[in-house]
C-alpha cells in the first residue's frame, strides 16, 4: 500500500499535476513562490515551473483576483491564492459583482476559467480575523462554483476539476485539515464538481457535512455506533453545484437529518440545504431537522472559548442522540 499523503501536500500535488498537463495554468499570490506559501501548500511549484508561471504578488487582494479575472478572460487558467479566506472580504467585489456575473451579463460572450484557492476555517486559535469558515460568503452569490474537499485524494481530484473548469471556482482548503493524512490520489485522479459521496453508510440518521465537519461527523458516527445508533455521513464536497439529490435520497432512507457546518448558524449554507429538504423531503421526515453550526459570535482567541463556538464531536454526538431518540 502506498504511503499516506497529507492534505497539505495534496494541494501542491494537485496544482502541479494540472500545471504539467496545461501550460496555460499560472499561479499568483502572496509568498507562494520562493516561500512555498505560508501554509506550505505551493512548495516546489516555483522550482518546477519557474517564475513565469508562479508569481509572488504584493499585498493587494483586489489586484490578485482582478488580475486573475483579466487573465482568465484572455486565454489563461490562473490559480490565485488568497492566503486566509477571511481576506476574501478584501476582494469581495470581484467574487460578488465581477467574476460570477461576467459571462451572464455579456450574454455568454466571455468565460472566466479561474480558481481562487484559500485557507479556510478555525480551531487553531488564530482569532476573529484569521479563523472564519466563510464558504457561506461566496454561497450568497450565484455564478461561482464552490469546492471544499475533506481528504487528500479529493483535494487532488477536485483541484483537477476546478482548474479544468471553464467556470470560476472558489476552492476552500481547510487549515485544520492540512496535517491530516489519507490515501494518496491515484494518477489522473479527477473528482467531478457537484457529486456528493456517502462517506459512511448508515440507517438511523443522516449527517450532511463539508470539509472539516466530515472527519468530525465520522468520529461522532464511530462513537454513536457504540450505542447502536447508525449514522450515514454524506460528504457534500461542493456547495455549488449542490448535490441535494444525494442528501434527499439519504434522508429518504433515514428520515432524519442533521447538518454539520463550521460557518455561523445565521446565514450558514446549512439553512439552504435544510430548506430544500423541508420542502422536497418533507414527507420522508420523522423528526425535526437540526443544524450544528458555529454559534453567532465572532471567533474568540482562546482555545477553550473557540471550542464553545465551533462544532465539536461532542456537540454532534449529542445532537444525533436527541434526533435518534425523537
Amino acid at each position: 500500500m502506498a504511503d499516506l499523503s497529507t492534505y497539505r501536500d495534496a494541494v501542491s500535488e494537485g496544482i502541479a499535476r494540472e500545471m504539467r498537463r496545461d501550460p496555460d495554468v499560472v499561479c499568483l499570490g502572496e509568498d507562494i513562490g520562493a516561500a512555498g506559501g505560508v501554509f506550505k501548500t505551493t512548495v516546489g511549484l516555483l522550482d518546477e515551473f519557474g517564475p513565469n508561471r508562479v508569481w509572488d504578488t504584493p499585498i493587494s487582494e483586489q489586484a490578485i483576483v482582478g488580475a486573475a479575472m483579466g487573465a482568465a478572460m484572455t486565454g489563461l487558467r490562473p490559480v490565485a491564492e488568497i492566503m486566509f479566506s477571511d481576506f476574501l472580504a478584501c476582494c469581495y467585489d470581484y467574487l460578488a459583482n465581477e467574476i460570477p456575473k461576467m459571462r451572464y451579463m455579456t450574454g455568454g460572450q466571455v468565460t472566466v476559467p479561474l480558481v481562487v484557492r484559500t485557507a479556510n476555517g478555525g480551531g487553531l486559535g488564530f482569532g476573529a480575523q484569521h479563523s472564519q469558515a466563510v464558504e457561506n460568503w461566496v454561497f450568497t452569490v450565484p455564478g461561482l462554483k464552490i469546492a471544499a474537499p475533506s481528504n487528500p485524494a479529493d483535494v487532488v481530484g477536485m483541484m483537477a476539476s476546478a482548474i479544468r473548469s471553464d467556470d470560476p471556482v472558489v476552492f476552500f482548503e481547510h487549515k485544520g485539515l492540512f496535517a491530516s493524512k489519507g490515501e494518496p490520489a491515484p494518477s489522473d485522479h479527477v473528482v467531478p464538481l457537484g457529486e456528493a459521496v456517502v462517506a459512511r453508510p448508515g440507517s438511523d440518521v443522516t449527517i450532511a457535512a463539508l470539509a472539516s465537519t466530515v472527519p468530525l461527523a465520522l468520529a461522532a458516527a464511530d462513537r454513536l455506533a457504540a450505542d447502536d445508533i447508525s449514522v450515514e455521513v454524506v460528504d457534500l464536497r461542493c456547495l455549488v453545484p449542490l448535490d441535494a439529490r444525494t442528501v434527499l435520497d439519504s434522508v429518504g432512507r433515514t428520515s432524519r437529518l442533521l447538518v454539520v457546518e463550521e460557518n455561523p448558524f445565521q446565514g450558514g449554507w446549512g439553512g439552504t440545504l435544510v430548506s430544500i429538504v423541508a420542502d422536497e423531503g418533507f414527507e420522508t421526515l420523522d423528526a425535526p431537522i437540526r443544524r450544528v453550526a458555529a454559534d453567532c459570535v465572532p471567533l474568540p482567541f482562546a482555545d477553550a472559548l473557540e471550542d464553545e463556538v465551533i462544532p465539536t464531536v461532542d456537540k454532534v454526538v449529542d445532537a444525533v442522540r436527541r434526533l435518534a431518540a425523537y
Partner: protein
Amino acid sequence: MTVSTEQSAAVDAASLLDLYQQMLLIRETEKAAFDQFMSGKVKGTTHLAAGHEAVAVGASSALRDDDYVFATYRGHHHAIARGASPGECLAELMSKATGLCKAKGGSMHLTKADHNMLGSYAIVGAHLPIAAGAAWSAKLRGTGQVAVAFFGDGATNIGAFHEALNLASVWKLPVIFVCENNFYMEYTPIRSVTSVAHPAADRASANALPAEVVDGNDVVAVHEAVVRAAERARAGNGPTLIEAETYRHYGHSRTDPGKYRPEDEVAYWMERDPLRITRDRLGELGVDRDALEAVEASVAKTVRDAVEEALGAPDADPAEAFTDMWADGSATWRT
C-alpha cells in the same frame, strides 16, 4: 508627469476625416439613445458619452485590432469605437434579443468580445486590475497585445486604482490607463474630494508610471499620446497613465440636467466640442463643406437605420434569463 502642450502634429485630411466620422457616429448614436430613453423605449438607466468622443476614437485608432479594451458604465463610445454597430448597441438598450449582450447586460455593460472589447464595468475602478490581468496574460502569451482601461476621474480615489497601478508597474505590464477626466463624479466636482489637482496624472509617480495630461477633446492629441504609450508597452517598458481632460454634454445619467455645473463652465466646454475642433482643423486642411456634409449625411442615415433596426428587432426572450450562467450554457446550480 508631463503636460503635452505641443500642437498635435500634422495628420492628413483623409485619416482625420475618418476619425471625424467615427466621432460623429458616436455623437449621433448617443443622441438617439437619449431620445429613445425619453420616449420610454430605453429602460433602466444610461450614461451618455457625448463630449467624450475624442478620447474613444483617438485612443482606439492608435491600437491594434487585437488589443484589449475595458470601459466603464459610460462606455457606448468605446464599444462603437471598437466596432460595435449602433444597431446592436441601441438594441441592447431597448431590451432586444439582438442586443450586444442579448439584453442581459444593458447600457452599463456593453461588450464586444469578438473585437476584444472586453466589457463595460459598473463598479467604479473594478476593471483596472482586470485590465492589468489581461496585459499580464498578453505578456505571458507573448502576443504583443496591449490592454487599455478607460476610467473616470472619480475612479482615482478608490483602492483598486492604486493596486492596479502598482501591480502593472512592478510587473511591467503592457497596459495603458486612460482617465477621462470630465471634472465631475455624479453631481460632485472631483476637486472637492481629491487631494491633488490632476486626479489621475498626479498619482502616477507613486507607482513609477509615466503620465501625460492631454486635451481629451483633441482627437489627434489623444491618438498621439496613446501611440506613444502603446509603443512603450509593446517594447516591454510597462504601463503608462494618460489623463485626458474632457467634458460631458449630457448630465451624469438618465434625465439629469446637470444643473450643478456653472453655465459659463458649460459654455466654455461647448465651445471646445471635440466635433467642432475637428471640423475646424479639417477646414484648415482644406476639406470643404460638401465633404463634411457627405459624411454627416451618411452618419445620420446609419443611425436612423440603426434606430429602425433596433425598434424592429424582437424583444429578448424571457427564457434567456436562465441561460449562460455557466460555460455549458446552463444555469443549473443543484441536483
